């Protein structure tokens, strides 16, 4: 199967477009999250999404309408993580762990109470990038545009709180609001993109491209752009490779992301020696 033939399939075009858009916004958010030591928040919120989808299905909200339950629950939990770190003096990773384990425990209990909807529930957990519909591509476009617009609008504030939150406060920045914005955008991304690409890929796209870009880039804007580029390369390359080799797409994208990260670490060492 050659590249032109692969590209001629509608499902491939949709997978590449939606996957690339999600890769861009995950990479951009990931840079802020990794530097703020909240990189596992994507994983944590994905577990909460599992619980919230179980709740939605139990309340008879099926398919897309599950989002009406899932979105507010996950957004509230993302703010909960933030409040735990601020008020209860719990570190970021511990706060994510607390909310994440609670989310998955509630999900498992609700799934057991609900009985017959486990297949629906697990489709949220693992997603399938090759099964993305036209409506879901549109959703990815709207999501990507919204998140990137907000990040552009609050760019200086986001960089300031990422550098040092106290210094940002003394600069008159309402740090609580900007931190809330960051975790809410992450929650929105996780809930909407998880159905498309699955829990494993969301986490990988938030952490790996940004971590690779942080090895190489000089300057914050350059880091964001490089992370987005590396994320897109991994999605496109991984999708093609998975179709050609007939292996799972999400896992292939994660592996390619990891290889890029490895190369970036190696490149950093080379640059340091020069």
């Amino acid at each position, binding site marked *: 199967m050659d590249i032109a033939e692969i590209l001629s399939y509608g499902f491939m075009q949709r997978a590449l477009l939606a996957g690339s858009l999600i890769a861009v916004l995950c990479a951009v958010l990931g*840079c802020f999250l990794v*530097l703020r*030591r909240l990189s596992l928040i994507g994983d944590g919120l994905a577990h909460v999404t599992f619980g919230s989808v179980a709740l939605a299905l139990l309340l008879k909200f099926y398919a897309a309408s599950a989002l009406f339950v899932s979105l507010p629950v996950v957004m509230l939990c993302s703010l909960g993580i933030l409040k735990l770190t601020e008020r209860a003096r719990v570190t970021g990773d511990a706060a994510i762990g607390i909310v994440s384990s609670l989310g998955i425990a509630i999900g498992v209990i609700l799934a057991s109470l609900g009985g017959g909807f486990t297949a629906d529930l697990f489709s949220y957990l693992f997603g399938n990038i090759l099964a993305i519909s036209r409506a879901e591509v549109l959703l990815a476009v709207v999501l990507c545009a919204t998140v990137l617009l907000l990040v552009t*609008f609050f760019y*200086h*504030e986001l*960089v*300031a709180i*990422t*550098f*040092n939150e*106290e*210094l*940002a*406060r*003394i*600069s*008159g*920045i309402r740090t609580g609001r900007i931190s809330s914005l960051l975790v809410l955008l992450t929650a929105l991304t996780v809930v909407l993109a998880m159905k498309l690409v699955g829990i494993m890929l969301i986490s990988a796209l938030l952490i790996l491209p940004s971590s690779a*870009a*942080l*090895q190489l*880039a*000089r*300057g*914050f804007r*350059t*880091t964001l752009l490089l992370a987005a580029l590396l994320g897109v390369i991994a999605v496109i390359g991984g999708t093609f490779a998975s179709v050609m080799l007939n292996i799972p797409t999400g896992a292939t994208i994660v592996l390619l992301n990891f290889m890029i990260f490895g190369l970036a670490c190696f490149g950093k060492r080379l640059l340091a020696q020069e």
Partner: protein
Amino acid sequence: MPPVIDVKGLYCRYGATHVLSDITFRVEDGDYVGIVGPNGSGKSTLVRALLGLSSRDEGEIGLFGVPLSEFEDWQQIGYLPQHFNLFTSNFPATVTEVVRLGLLSGKRFPRRISRADTARIDDILEYMGVQDLRRRRIGQLSGGQQQRVLLARAMVNQPRLLILDEPTAALDPETRDRFYSLLAEVNRERNTTILLVTHDSATIGSCASKLLYLDKRLVFYGTFREFCVSSAMTNHFGELAQHQICRLH
């Protein structure tokens, strides 16, 4: 002209432990005040309370004649916190980007950086002698270079008050002396009021116009000369220690 800092009857505590009790002092325009005292004496707590970063239990704090709770003119204040853990070592911002963050306090949303701002960044980098580092990542610089960049960040808005919390703790003696000279120059040439927290009572004595000695309460506040003849300090240090500190100058 109202005092730059006006503190009256300040009490702070963490849980049940009193960290600061009954602190009252004023800092006037152009003063260079060294805040000294042993570990755990409340120096950093005082600075953080002045900036509204930690809560106070009792007392009043005024900045430029405005109560702290109503103070919004943050561009008048440059702050350099303790360097340890200030930012993650892989933070990708360049020196220029870090200094640019210092301009945000003078701007309202949406905060945009103009060409005039860029010129101000260039000027302050040159003044600090770090213009050649502008494209380097902040995490790649040595401790002394980072400290100069962070001071440039604190000063880029030309603040009237500069607050520094143990800025020389991680520096070697030579770099530390150069840093103190730079601060003295800023105080002299720009009439910037400086509040500097340090462990080093002897060195700061030669730079600062006033010393504030804390030990959970205000033990002494006055000039270095007054410090050397203060009976409060003699009682606190003992005559020999006081003599040894003052003999250096």
